[in-house]
């Protein structure tokens, strides 16, 4: 485990959830949380419980939908899947984050390297 985990920036969890659902299809809350942890290589400080607030927020916006189903251990669980509107939102948000991280990368490179120009 890394010495210190990354705190999630505001709004990033929602995007991660959307992306996970888009990539993996139908999942329950635990599945989503585990998936995010695995993908991040356990580098993200995620209290799994916080995912439920994110899920209800995305549901209210109509970006994901939920239905009751049965989990692998035969327990009643709620399964989430991304909606059409959610996919649209995801592509917008992803593009935004991409641009932002590009800019951040460039700015940070500048401060390390030459200060001319």
């Amino acid at each position, binding site marked *: 485990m890394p010495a210190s985990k990354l705190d999630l920036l505001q709004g990033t969890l929602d995007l991660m959830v959307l992306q996970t659902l888009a990539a993996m299809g139908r999942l329950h809350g635990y*599945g989503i949380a585990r998936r995010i942890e695995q993908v991040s290589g356990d580098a993200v400080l995620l209290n*799994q419980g916080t995912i439920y607030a994110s899920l209800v927020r995305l549901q209210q916006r109509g970006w994901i939908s939920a239905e009751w189903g049965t989990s*692998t251990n035969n327990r009643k669980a*709620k399964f989430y899947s991304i909606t059409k509107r959610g996919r649209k939102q995801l592509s917008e948000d992803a593009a935004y984050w991409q641009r932002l991280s590009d800019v951040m990368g460039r700015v940070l490179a500048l401060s390390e390297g030459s200060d001319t120009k």
Partner: protein
Amino acid sequence: MTDQLRRLFHRVRSLFRRAEQDRDLDVEMSAHLELAVEENLRRGLSRAEARRQALLRFGGWQQAKENHREVRGLPLLETLLQDLRFALRMLRRSPAFSLLAIFCLTLGIGANAAVFSWMEGLLFRPYPLVAHQERLVALTGTARGESGHTGLSWPDFLELQRNCKLFDTFFVSKITGTTLSIGDRAQVVTGSIVSANYFEVLGVHPILGRAFEPSEDVGRSAHPVTVISYQLWKERFQGDPQIIGKTQRMDGVIHTIIGVAPEGFYGTFVGWATKFWVPASMEDTFEAGGYKLEDRGERWIEAYGGSSPGSPSSKRNRKSLRWRSVWKTTIPQPTAAAASSCGPCGKRLSTMRELCSPPSEPCSWSWFLCF
């Protein structure tokens, strides 16, 4: 926009489905924990350790629930509703105390509302129907070497009318009263002795008959005529359209009714509804102490000055500093007994609304109640 509306809709709806949503979340979170424990067991942990790890990874259990509620509902409103429910429960628990508290509040709020509407009527609301009352000021006399204010004498008033250019018009009035016997009922009513120009200066026109004529100021008890209020006309004379020219005995003298004032005009005494007006020449009839219209020492009337809009005097009368000098030159040396100088009440000329004549009793009472 639609996005926000949609969220609002969900949030409001969740207010009514609180229990159901809490139950759902419980089921969901329990399933989550189960899955986590099972995975940990598969990794070879003991059951206790598996559960501990699972809980650890989940983070605060209650906190997760709270976050969920906050996001899905309207936390402010929910808290408010909770507080309300709590308050009602507490009120029901001790009904006697609650009733007492409610009673006290009702009484307090009621009394305050009454007092303030009273104050508004007495002090702040303009005189109904009086035109340009912001251009009217109340004048009082002062006695040399004495504090306090006095009225004016009739000769003072005539002098002002003739010579004082500080205002365009002056008028006077004096509150009085009489017992009216109409039919089988006697009633004490408030009246007013006024200069003949009273109605004209106030811009109040009788709805029936006429107002006073200048000549009606002159001659001791020579003009037993009266203008009655709309209220009196309606209540005691049944709104008789033929009222003009009829007579009414007041203080032993038969008066001819010459006019009916318009509805809503109550005269110019704060806190009193004047029911009839008589010209100054009838002073002797209503006032004790004999005929005072020729006596400069008898300062028995309240005087007012008024200026018409746009006239030079309307600017001048704001300059209270010049007031005294003008006044002194206007009023000739008074008789020995009477005071010698007059001035505006207070430090400046006040409009009628800030009337300098002492507030009537109810006023001081209402202040008392306020505090």
